[in-house]
C-alpha cells in the first residue's frame, strides 16, 4: 500500500516534468495548442506498473495540474481528450494481448493526436482540420514508437530495482 502511494507520487511528478519540457519544445502542427504528448512516456510505463483505475487517475491529475501550471483552459480540454482516448485505446490493446509495449505505445501516440484533432474540430466547428490528419498521425506514430522503446527499457530496470 505504501509503495503504491509512493509510485503514484513519483509518476505524477515525473509526468509534470515532462509536461513542462513539452512546453519548451515549440512544435507547430498547424493546429494551435496540439502537443506531441511527451508525458505519455509516464502513462505507458504506469500502465504496466499500476492498476488501470490508478493510471486513469494519474492521467487526469497530470492533465489538470499541468494545465493550471503551464497552460490554459483550452490546453486542458485538448490534453484531456487526447490523454483519455489514448489511455482507453492502450488499455484495450494491452488487455487484448499480442502487442508489445512499443505497439501499445504507438497506438497511444496516434490516438492521443486523434483526440486532440476531434476537440479542435468541435471547438472551431470546421472540418478543415482534417487537412492535418496525415501529419498528426505520422507524428503520433513516431512519438509513440520512441516512447514505447524508452518505456520498455524503463520497465526492465524498474523490475530489477524491486
Amino acid at each position, binding site marked *: 500500500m505504501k509503495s503504491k502511494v509512493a509510485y503514484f507520487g513519483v509518476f505524477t511528478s515525473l509526468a509534470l516534468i515532462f509536461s513542462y519540457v513539452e512546453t519548451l519544445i515549440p512544435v*507547430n502542427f*498547424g*493546429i*494551435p*495548442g496540439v502537443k506531441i504528448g511527451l508525458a505519455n512516456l509516464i502513462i505507458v510505463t504506469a500502465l504496466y506498473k499500476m492498476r488501470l483505475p490508478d493510471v486513469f487517475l494519474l492521467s487526469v491529475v497530470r492533465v489538470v495540474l499541468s494545465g493550471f501550471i503551464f497552460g*490554459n483552459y*483550452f490546453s486542458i480540454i485538448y490534453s484531456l481528450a487526447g490523454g483519455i482516448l489514448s489511455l482507453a485505446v492502450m488499455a484495450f*490493446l494491452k488487455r487484448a494481448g*499480442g*502487442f*508489445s*509495449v*512499443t*505497439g501499445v505505445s*504507438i*497506438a497511444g501516440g*496516434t490516438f492521443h493526436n486523434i483526440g486532440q484533432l476531434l476537440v*479542435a474540430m468541435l*471547438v*472551431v*466547428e*470546421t472540418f*478543415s*482540420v*482534417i*487537412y492535418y*490528419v*496525415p501529419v498528426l*498521425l*505520422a507524428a503520433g*506514430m513516431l512519438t509513440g514508437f520512441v516512447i514505447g*522503446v524508452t518505456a*520498455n*527499457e524503463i520497465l526492465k530496470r524498474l523490475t530489477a530495482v524491486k
Partner: protein
Amino acid sequence: MGIGLKKKDVLLALIILCVIGFTVLIRTYIGGAGANRVVIKVNGAIQGVYSLAEDREIEINEGTNILKIKNGEADMVEADCPDQLCVNQKPVSLDHESLICLPNRVVVEVESKEESEYDAVTN
C-alpha cells in the same frame, strides 16, 4: 536494445500507415490548384469571403484579429488572444488550409471558386 516488436505491432503500424496514405490522397484530391479566396468564420458563422488576388487588411470580429492578404497568401498579423498561436502560424494559400484562433473562435479557410455555396454572402 531490444524493441521486441510482435506480429500485431507491425500490423497496427501498417494500418496506421495505410490511413495516412489514404488521407494524403484525399488531401491532394480536395487540395490542389484553384484556391483563390478565403472564407472567414467566427463561431462557425461566415463573416465574409475575400479574394486572395487583392492585397488588403481585414479586421475580423470587430478587430480582435487582423488578417492580411498579400501576394496570394493570407496571414494573421494581429490578434488579442493570449496564446498568439494564430499569429505564429505560417501564411496559408493552398485549398483547405486554415488559420485558426481558438480563443477567439476565428477560422480563416482557403477555398476555391468552384465551391460556390458561400456566394450569397460574398461582399
